């Protein structure tokens, strides 16, 4: 409880001093369809006079320029000192109306937006009850707004550097945009090389450009850019601070290779005797050595020693790489290094994981040898892959004569993921083309719906039809090796209901490719928590607004790009990377950033120096002055949660924007009608 609670007793006189304007938005029929806006407006104008209401209006679209002008005109002509807008959620248009007030010379924080759309009209059907609720909400807003104080945002300098987490195509694009504009970038990547999933692909749809050919130059640019500091084989451990001033702790894992001496000549991995199945880059189809770069064009070129498999780390002897290294760059004594970087903004572009096709047991992946995943097929088809680009069966030599491609594996299926992974249709069409071109095999596509909505995508589909790919519409029930007739012997049989002809079909093939969907990274929830942003139930990170703000997040200074936000193809990931970069560049150019003035202040003369608040603060924003024996809030660190305000036993802390007075008055306002009704019944 705080001292300013006492003032709420004088609410009536304080309220009458202010001249409040009330504006009820119809939002077309969004609000007006359920809430009787005219009645609410009339009621507020007649019944809230004691609280200071001098104008009450309703208007079709308050957020339109005409609606805003209405408020501005009243501020100027009627001398309004407070404004209440009852419309949509403050998370949508609070800024709009604050700016409108500012434009008319009223401090923007003297405006209160209360929600009668998301929290009333959209969720209720009973029109009478919804209208009563709207009145209560408006009355709460009016009671609150008279206790608002004019506030000024706090300006803090913005650090020009940016941290980008994830070196896939989205992260690469963002890094290049920011670095090219002349500002420093730290690019953190968990793997030994940047490049992400795109580096694994063979061709890209629908143009069939070679993926490596278009990606490698960008990777090289990143590697050579004077403004980009690459931190590969590294992970973010801790994020402190706030927009403009983050301090990020990064763990640089030991590579056991001195990067300043290594030339990337490759002698070490030639001489390394230990072969390891490469289940990351080669999707389990190929091998790498214990000292390796994931692929020949890796950036940076320095290898890493995989200390789980390296013979020296396992048995204590070997060191072949050290012996043969011409520049003596191998260093088995290297330890993980913890570094801290200071940045102003952060982009998360941590990408996606492939759906584990083993989970769909009826498709037999992991049990039937010649069932492949989409990522395995990418590596099979890639001329730099384990088979040199030959599309062959698991035996490594037989070319398939017939191939089935199954769409929507793990996507659009309530047993796995409800969402559409968005890239699998085009990916499957690309596979069909590659199989056709390289092997001449008969190709079947098993699809539920073909989704080809982007530029030149549907043309690619038409092209595939002309090339003679067979399309079967139906969700595959089972892939089996149990033959029912001699024609099926030694084949994989795809059991499917062809919904276009309304018949069950059994189609024998040599090879099955499962077009597995995209899933959030296995640790996306932990990442969301680390960076203090929200994550959907699926695990995709949540953008600030699904349509109008797709790369910002609810946390200022943290942006998302690429598949971390949801499944998307390469052009969309690139666009998001560039978009996030543009947003950040705009912020950096401003050199300082305005922080919301919602924060706590300690009244020195009331502070007893008990230090209860010191330990309450999650941001260690409260300092204790030993000399004066009082605590003080650092306004740049304070995030305005208000816990200390509540905790202070002396009531010495006030919470700007959410003061006790404001909240207690709002409660009173919300209950104004209820109390009146209770009094009536009591009298009766």
């Amino acid at each position: 409880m705080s001292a300013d609670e006492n003032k709420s007793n004088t609410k009536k006189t304080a309220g009458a001093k202010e001249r409040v304007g009330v504006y009820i938005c119809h939002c077309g029929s969004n609000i007006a369809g359920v809430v009787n806006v005219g009645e609410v407006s009339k009621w507020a104008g007649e019944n809230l006079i004691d609280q200071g209401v001098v104008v009450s209006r309703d208007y079709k679209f308050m957020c339109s320029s005409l609606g805003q002008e209405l408020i501005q005109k009243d501020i100027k002509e009627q001398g309004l000192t407070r404004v209440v807008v009852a419309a949509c959620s403050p998370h949508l248009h609070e800024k709009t109306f604050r700016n409108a007030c500012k434009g008319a010379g009223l401090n923007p924080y003297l405006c209160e937006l209360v929600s009668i759309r998301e929290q009333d009209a959209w969720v209720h059907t009973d029109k009478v009850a919804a209208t009563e609720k709207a009145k209560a909400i408006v009355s709460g807003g009016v009671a609150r707004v008279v206790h608002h104080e004019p506030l000024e945002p706090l300006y803090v300098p913005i650090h020009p550097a940016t941290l980008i987490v994830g070196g896939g195509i989205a992260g690469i694009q963002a890094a290049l945009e920011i670095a090219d504009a002349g500002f420093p970038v730290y690019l953190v990547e968990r793997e030994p090389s940047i490049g992400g999933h795109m580096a694994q692909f063979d061709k890209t749809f629908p143009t069939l450009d070679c993926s490596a050919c278009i990606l490698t130059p960008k990777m090289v640019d990143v590697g050579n850019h004077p403004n980009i500091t690459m931190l590969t084989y590294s992970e973010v451990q801790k994020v402190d601070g706030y927009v403009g001033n983050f301090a990020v702790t990064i763990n640089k894992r030991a590579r056991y290779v001195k990067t300043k001496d290594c030339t990337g000549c490759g002698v070490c991995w030639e001489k390394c005797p230990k072969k390891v199945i490469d289940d990351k880059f080669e999707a389990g189809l190929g091998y790498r050595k214990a000292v390796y770069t994931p692929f020949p064009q890796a950036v940076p070129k320095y290898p890493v020693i995989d200390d789980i498999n390296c013979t020296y780390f396992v048995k204590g002897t070997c060191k072949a790489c050290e012996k043969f290294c011409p520049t003596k760059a191998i260093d088995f004594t290297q330890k993980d290094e913890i570094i801290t970087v200071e940045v102003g903004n952060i982009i998360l572009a941590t990408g996606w994981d492939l759906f584990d096709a083993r989970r769909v047991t009826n498709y037999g992946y992991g049990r039937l040898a010649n069932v492949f995943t989409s990522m395995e097929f990418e590596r099979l088809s890639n001329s730099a892959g384990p088979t040199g680009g030959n599309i062959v069966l698991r035996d490594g030599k037989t070319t398939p004569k017939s191939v089935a491609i199954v769409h929507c594996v793990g996507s659009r299926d309530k047993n796995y993921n409800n969402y559409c992974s968005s890239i699998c249709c085009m990916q499957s069409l690309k596979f069909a083309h590659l199989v056709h071109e390289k092997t001449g095999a008969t190709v079947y596509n098993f699809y539920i719906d073909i989704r080809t909505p982007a530029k030149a995508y549907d043309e690619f589909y038409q092209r595939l039809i002309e090339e003679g790919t067979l399309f079967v519409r139906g969700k595959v029930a089972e892939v089996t090796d149990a033959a029912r007739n001699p024609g099926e012997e030694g084949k994989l049989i795809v059991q499917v209901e062809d919904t276009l002809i309304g018949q069950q079909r059994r189609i024998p093939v040599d090879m099955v490719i499962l077009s597995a969907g995209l899933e959030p990274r296995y640790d996306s929830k932990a990442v969301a928590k680390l960076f203090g942003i929200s994550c959907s139930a699926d695990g995709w990170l949540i953008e600030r607004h699904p349509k109008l703000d797709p790369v910002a997040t609810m946390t200022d200074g943290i942006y998302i790009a690429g598949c971390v936000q949801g499944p998307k193809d390469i052009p969309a990931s690139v666009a998001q990377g560039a978009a996030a970069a543009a947003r950040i560049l705009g912020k950096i150019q401003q050199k300082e950033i305005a922080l919301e003035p919602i924060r706590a202040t300690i009244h020195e003369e009331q502070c007893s120096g008990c230090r209860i608040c010191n330990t309450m603060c999650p941001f260690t924003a409260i300092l204790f002055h030993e000399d004066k024996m009082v605590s003080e809030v650092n306004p740049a660190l304070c995030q305005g949660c208000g816990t200390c305000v509540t905790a202070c036993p002396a009531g010495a802390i006030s919470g700007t924007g959410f003061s006790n007075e404001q909240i207690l008055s709002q409660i009173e306002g919300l209950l104004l009608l209820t109390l009146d009704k209770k009094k009536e019944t009591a009298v009766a």
Partner: protein
Amino acid sequence: MTEETKPFEPVIIGFTCNWCSYRAADMAGIARMKYAPNVRLTRLMCSGRLDPTFVFKAFAGGADAVLISGCHPGDCHYVNQNYKAMRRYHLMKRVLVQMGIEPGRLKLLWASAAEGQIFANEINKFVEEVRALGPLNWNADRRPQIADHVLLSVVNGQPAEAEVKA
């Protein structure tokens, strides 16, 4: 009482944090999920801001029940301030019981920004629970008598259905 045929419509004051539960309410709205119109929300920056005075003020001002809502434990935008709300919630229940108010009139609900459906469902459930309790009446002669075992369960911090003897 002229409208005895109509069911009792409780008035509930809800406190939500700015980041998770208010956005859950927004989400319920955007998805047009329907729920009972009995709850009026007050937005705080964090459930840790919830001063017990606010809750008592709501009851004193005529609310039949109070809902406190915040981010899930571990998900707080302000690191861990929702735990403070949770502690205060349990303490407030004890105080309410001592004042003769059924503990079932105070509810704590964790809802993330994505849990609009949970938010809507829980409000419906809570409205029904409060409807069963009836109006909060401050007249001394009609003050509800709370059974000993309910009292004990609150003091011991264990949930129990509120039982009211007329």
